């Protein structure tokens, strides 16, 4: 029985330690934060509910891009000497965790801007940010977030509608059959998928095509035979697939097997993945993806792309850039674009009220005065600017195409036909 007691007690102690350890560590972290020595200029605080782990972990490079931009900005001397402190926490694309992180940072620090990850989280944060008067620097994605422009929400890169319509415009320029092009859309049933249907249908007559078929198409589907048959039966000329590299590859393969080769297959920026041509096993040839950035390895002649590739190598230990893996920097650039937005706003605000007095209000007003902001480091995207009625950083996109099994740039940035309602 004595042994039982010893065992009981030892396991009890283990359990108690297990339970209290996180608490102790969490507490000790709080102490560290207060130890920061005061500097001459007050720090500018920004927050982020990041996405690093969890089921959407593949989007982690967005977070790394954002953090690297801030690190680099601070190394370049910050905003007129004021350093930017980023408070971030991994929220796994989860709305409740994002809100908890926001509540924490907005109460604990004098935040000027916050960045959320995921549509649900951003929509939930938009309302809170408006109430507390904090800029929501969103990563471009769903048009619902910035159209119509909300007072406190600014998007750092073009949304899906801009990209989709840019690609459609290009497709119609290439169209020479002398009849109205028939367009089929494949989309997953989530905000990402549904956000493009409305805009593509709305611009049909303006750009000169008609939408004849809409098919739901899961991102994890094993086959796409029924979608392929539907497109084939409706004699679709152009297929717009809102999907990931994997799902677009599945669709391409199945259309090929059914002997149905549409004139053009267009996908969103998620398709532009180095593994896509291989995933599609030869059937991905000619697939077009829109993207609003210049990337490596295609655009290494662009100085800022070169710059960020080196920085990523320096900061991220080969996870973002590795010599043997042909990593494509789409998501990383997406994260950088949020950094550009913040730098633009903060520099403008510093010019207006001085770096020491930047508040969220000042940042918001300054952002609306930003026009064509572009530095050497932000050359991976066009100049950005906002107005009271337009909170989208820019509305240009460029296109890439699979040629001989690799992604090749087929044009430079051009303005998308998408127009904001005034």
């Amino acid at each position, binding site marked *: 029985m004595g042994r039982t007691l010893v065992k009981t007690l030892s396991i009890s102690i283990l359990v108690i330690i297990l339970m209290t350890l996180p608490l102790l560590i969490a507490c000790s972290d709080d102490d560290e934060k207060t130890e920061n020595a005061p500097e001459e200029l007050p720090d500018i605080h920004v927050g982020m509910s990041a996405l690093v*782990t969890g*089921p*959407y*972990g*593949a989007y*982690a490079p967005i977070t790394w891009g954002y953090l690297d931009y801030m690190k680099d900005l601070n190394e370049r001397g910050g905003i007129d000497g004021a350093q930017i402190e980023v408070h971030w926490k991994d929220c796994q694309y989860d709305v409740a965790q994002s809100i908890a992180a926001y509540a924490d940072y907005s109460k604990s620090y004098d935040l000027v801007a916050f960045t959320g990850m995921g549509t649900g989280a951003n929509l939930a944060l938009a309302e809170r940010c408006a109430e507390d008067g904090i800029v929501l620097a969103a990563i471009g994605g769903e048009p619902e977030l910035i159209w119509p422009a909300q007072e406190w929400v600014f998007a750092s890169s073009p949304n899906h509608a801009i990209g989709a319509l840019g690609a459609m415009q290009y497709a119609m320029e290439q169209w020479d059959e002398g009849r109205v092009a028939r367009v089929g859309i494949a989309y997953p*049933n989530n905000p990402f998928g549904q956000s493009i249907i409305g805009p593509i249908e709305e611009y049909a007559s303006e750009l000169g095509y008609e939408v004849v078929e809409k*098919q*739901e198409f*899961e*991102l*994890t*589907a*094993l*086959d796409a*035979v*029924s*979608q392929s*048959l*539907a497109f084939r*039966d409706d004699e679709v000329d152009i297929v717009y697939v809102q999907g990931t*590299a*994997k799902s677009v*590859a*599945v669709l391409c*393969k199945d259309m*090929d*097997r*059914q*002997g149905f080769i549409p004139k053009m297959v267009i996908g969103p920026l998620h398709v532009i*993945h180095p*593994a896509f041509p*291989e*995933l599609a*096993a*030869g*059937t991905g040839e000619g697939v077009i993806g829109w993207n609003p950035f210049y990337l490596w390895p295609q655009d290494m002649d662009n100085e800022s792309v070169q710059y960020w590739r080196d920085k990523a190598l320096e900061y991220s230990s080969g*996870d973002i850039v590795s010599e043997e893996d042909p*990593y494509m920097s789409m998501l990383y650039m997406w994260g950088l674009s949020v950094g550009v937005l913040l730098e633009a706003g903060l520099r403008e605000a510093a010019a207006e009220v001085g770096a020491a007095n930047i508040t969220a209000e000042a940042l918001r007003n300054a952002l609306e005065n930003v026009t064509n902001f572009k530095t050497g480091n932000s050359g991976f995207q066009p100049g950005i600017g906002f107005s009271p009625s337009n909170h989208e950083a820019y509305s240009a996109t460029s296109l890439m195409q699979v040629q001989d099994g690799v992604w090749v740039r087929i044009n430079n940035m051009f303005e998308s036909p998408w127009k904001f309602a005034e």
Partner: protein
Amino acid sequence: MDTFLQLVVTGLAVGATYGLIALGFVLIYKASGVLNLAQGELMMFGAYICFVFSVQANIPFYAAVALTLPVALLIGAVIERFFLRYMIGQPLISVIMMTIGLMILMRGIATWIWGTEPKVYPQVFPQESMSIGSVNISYEYLWAAGLSIFFVLIYIIFFRFTKSGLVMRATSDDEHAALSIGISIKKVLSQSWAIAALTAAVGGIIIGALVGLDTTSFPQYGLKVLPVVLLGGLDSIPGAIIGGILIGLTENLVPEYLGFLGGGMEELAPYILVLIVLIVRPHGLFGLKRIERI
């Protein structure tokens, strides 16, 4: 009519792969009475280990598959020895929770080792398709279906005619009775997990060859077949196969012919079907009806 035939043929072929996945659930349940929710993760491990051999170590694909199988057996045995062994005699929900814990841990390990970027096998199956009349069927699906059917036959023979198979069935039926006639439960459990892991690895490799690998979407294939496993009955091998084929068919036919009910019905149809069947036949279509005593 052409469309219908095409969809049926595709549904059958994809369904056979689902059947193979379902078989993994049935194998473990038959031997140990455990519903293994980590089946999708076992598939993922098998698929990624094959990726390591075939792409990273540059071994020809079929040799890589042959090398993967013993590793998968080992993984299954290790999981049983270090995790499930402690669950003997524990209530149902603890066992389910253990498989959920395994599921999360295995996802973590896979993410750690292989990252979140999609990976691709070298071209495994020929991309061309074969035409029979108006129906196109690709060699990929034919291979997948063929392999699945091959494994099913082997398992049916194993459980019906070999001693180990019979011992496993006895253990699943009543652990205590099996113990009392001198069966080593530990050995049986270890074997069953090893075999289930092997099945899962084959399923994973087939799916990897069809759509490529990534650490985030694999688990969903495991959960997708769960309703049909129950439809056939948790302890029925033919049930698993028929269930798998059924889900392949619904996925292909429902959007085409029941599309008017609203999109996404193909995800719901298996659940609605299984609910109705379970109310009429509580142990599934082919499951063993147990007589309960106090």
